[in-house]
């Protein structure tokens, strides 16, 4: 792994880094900020995740929908006693704004950063906006590494004070096209300076295992910690939607059928016939199956050499994280000393 450079024996010393370097199977969980200025939403979600993950990953205007900023939400999460992984996309900010916000994020106590290109703005709620894309995710990784390890801004200007030290994350899309190039693009991200990798949602374990085989051939799993992305399915409709409409996500038919089977006791009833109670019972049955599938996926992914942990994306369903982490035998989360053993 990348040589630690800070005084405490770690590159950065965030809880996430400590857990990963101690070879524990790491767990991060996603937290989606609200479409409002309400700090209580963040606090409630943080309470659901506290103790069940090593760090909380906070989205940055995900799917190009305006939400409370990742950094501001991260500050609240830290106040609540959790560790944050903040996200930074290249869609909304140029290199000036990105670097300025990262200085501020570090000053506010954030230590982990996920570098993303960002979803295109036409998918979100301001489709007429202008995008930035001054830099891309690879260049962002390089810039953050340059700030941390060389104490320089992108321009080459040196810092006059403390530099922001982030444990640098990047995304990987193992199933997006061109599939054969994906391990190499991951290699580029790691060469650029990524310390940990978070993958797109995995539902097709054999396909992911093939990707990981290539990753191991390239020795990438020894140069960065790879967290497999997982997420509980909520309904069969959601499963089908992800299969057909979200690029880079493979959902095997067997999983969709399993979700459908969970709703069988109520099958054949029309919208008018089904009572409110029955609807709720069916929704609960779907959720239970979705959580069970997620637990099994984690158990299977854990067997793949080179998978260092999981990132749980329970979108607008943070309640699911607790049963998933417990069910997968990943609770309680490890406590790792702040000083590394030399």
């Amino acid at each position, binding site marked *: 792994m990348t040589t630690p450079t800070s005084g405490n024996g770690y590159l950065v010393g965030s809880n996430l880094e400590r857990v990963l370097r101690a070879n524990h199977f790491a767990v991060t969980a996603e937290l989606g900020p609200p479409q409002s200025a309400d700090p209580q939403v963040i606090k409630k979600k943080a309470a659901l995740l506290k103790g069940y993950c090593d760090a909380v990953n906070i989205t940055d205007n995900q799917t190009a929908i305006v939400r409370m900023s990742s950094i501001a939400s991260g500050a609240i999460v830290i106040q609540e006693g959790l560790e944050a992984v903040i996200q930074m996309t290249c869609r909304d900010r140029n290199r000036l704004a990105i670097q300025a916000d990262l200085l501020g994020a570090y000053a506010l106590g954030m230590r982990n950063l996920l570098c993303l290109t960002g979803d*295109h703005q036409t998918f979100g709620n301001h489709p007429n906006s202008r995008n930035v894309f001054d830099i891309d995710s690879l260049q962002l990784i*390089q810039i953050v590494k340059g700030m941390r390890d060389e104490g320089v801004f992108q321009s080459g200007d040196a810092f006059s004070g403390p530099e922001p030290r982030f444990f640098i994350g990047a995304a990987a899309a193992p199933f997006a096209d061109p599939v054969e190039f994906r391990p190499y693009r991951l290699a580029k991200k790691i060469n650029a300076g990524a310390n940990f990798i978070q993958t797109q949602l995995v539902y097709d374990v054999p396909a992911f295992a093939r990707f990981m085989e290539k990753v191991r051939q390239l020795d990438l799993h020894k140069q960065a910690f790879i967290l497999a992305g997982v997420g509980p399915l909520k309904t069969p409709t959601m499963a089908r939607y992800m299969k057909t409409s979200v*690029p880079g996500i493979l959902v095997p038919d067997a999983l969709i059928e399993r979700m459908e089977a969970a709703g069988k006791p109520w099958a054949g009833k029309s919208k008018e016939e089904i009572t409110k109670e029955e609807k709720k019972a069916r929704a609960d049955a779907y959720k239970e199956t979705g959580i069970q599938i997620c637990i099994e996926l984690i158990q299977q992914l854990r067997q793949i050499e080179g998978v260092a942990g999981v990132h749980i994306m329970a979108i607008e369903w943070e309640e699911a994280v607790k049963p998933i982490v417990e069910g997968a035998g990943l609770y309680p989360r490890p406590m790792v000393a702040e000083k590394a053993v030399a």
Partner: protein
Amino acid sequence: MIVADQKPLNELKSLTRGGENVLVVGCGTCVTVCFAGGAREAAITASSLRMAFKLDGNSRQVSDVTVQRQCEWEYLDQIAEQVKEADVVLSLGCGVGVQAIAEHFPETWVVPGLNTSFMGMPTEQGVWAERCAACGDCILGLTGGICPIARCSKSLLNGPCGGSEGGHCEVNPETPCAWQLIYDRLTGMGKLDVLMEIQPPKNWRAARDGGPRKIVREDLRLAKEEE
């Protein structure tokens, strides 16, 4: 070529409002080739406006003329008389043409009849696609002759992003993923190693971000002065 698209008739009516004498000016270069603002389109636009004005019960005059290139003073000199007689000039040139008319005829009210769309080419009969974003610092030598600045929805220099599926861009399934095209071309030519290099942040100063651009060729200027 510069590719443009005609504005709807209602917008043309609104833009030329108040002018008793409307002159439609076509352009004989790019917009002729993309069938948006040549002599034929200028004549059709003039006649459509005449009919529209007639239906509205007014007797406004509409005439048309087409010059070889609206973006050069010498061609505009040729229509100086007609421009002088018009209350409003409806230019069917690209944005450059409209501005050239405004600059050359300071007394004349000129409005655009086209939306200037992009720099591109016809890919098949009746279809034009963008190819160049005039970024001022050409990188086609790094990408196998396919431009990600103009053709990738996110202008990525180190693509493809996770939104590439089946060769298409997730932003629009009609748009080929530029990075899939680049990948295919470089693999086909055995040059995949080019893609393994990380391209550094781009110098956008050469693009519009550095302010309005201008090229001064001293060699040509001096030659002119010596005449």
